[in-house]
């Protein structure tokens, strides 16, 4: 059963990821990205990371992809990119070599470090649908709000800084309007 779900989710992830990089139209690429993100969410669910799967769907597939689509539509950049011609010669073969080499190095690292996989940590509460269906959420909350509460507060500062900075960046000032009348 887990094999079947894993196969379907892995197919979604890989097909979506390939779609992101081969689709000419940015909107199609964004929709392929949704497929990949849902596949990753399914993989989170079958690995008992229920809270993170929900956050994945809400934050990534909801907010981030909608933000991408907003920017694509808002700026009218939904032009088709010509993928046939290579702007730099030998760039694509080199990119293929680099990414295949990266995959090879990562898999080799996983293979050589697989002894680590036998270690056991402090314990992970597996959600049980009958007794304690939100055990994962509870445990994650306990971890975030006790051990990592300082990091949590710092991320809130980070989010505020990011929002304020983006508003400042994207704001149309009087000077820029005078310089670039449109």
């Amino acid at each position, binding site marked *: 059963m887990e094999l079947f779900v894993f196969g379907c989710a892995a197919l979604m992830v890989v097909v979506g990821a390939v779609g992101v990089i081969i689709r000419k139209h940015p909107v199609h690429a964004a929709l392929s990205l949704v497929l990949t993100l849902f596949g990753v969410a399914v993989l989170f669910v079958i690995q008992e990371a229920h809270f993170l799967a929900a956050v994945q769907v809400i934050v990534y597939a909801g*907010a981030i992809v909608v933000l991408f689509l907003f920017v*694509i539509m808002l700026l009218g950049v939904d032009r088709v990119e010509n993928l046939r011609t290579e702007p730099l010669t030998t760039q694509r073969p080199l990119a293929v070599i680099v990414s295949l080499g*990266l995959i090879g190095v990562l898999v080799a690292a*996983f293979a050589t470090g697989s002894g680590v996989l036998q*270690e056991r940590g*402090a314990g992970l509460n597996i959600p049980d649908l009958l007794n304690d269906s939100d055990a994962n959420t509870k445990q*994650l909350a306990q*971890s975030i709000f006790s051990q990592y509460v300082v990091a949590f507060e710092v991320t809130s500062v980070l989010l505020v800084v990011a929002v304020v*900075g983006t508003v400042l960046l994207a704001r149309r000032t009087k000077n*820029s309007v005078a310089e670039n009348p449109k």
Partner: protein
Amino acid sequence: MIALSLAPTASWYLVLSAVLFGIGTFGVLVRRNPLVMFMCIELMLNAVNLSFVTLARQLNDINGQTIVFFVMVVAAAEVVVGLGIIVAIMRNRSSVTADDLAELKG
């Protein structure tokens, strides 16, 4: 070595995340549209998140899932800032590819 049994083990998930990371790297290296390059960076971040969750289950440790939570927060902030920069640049130029962004002066 990586054991390939019938039930998906942690190695399967890790190999899948490596493949996803490689696809994202290829996209960042090849694509010219900065928005699509951003999407490829999201692919790479998701690959890392997947391996974190896999190791959290395999090593029986909640800390892997905690760090995925923080990675998601930082990724959201990064997308907001990056898209703000792209909007600010595209306001001054009609066509933007990564080749046109060789200079930062607006």
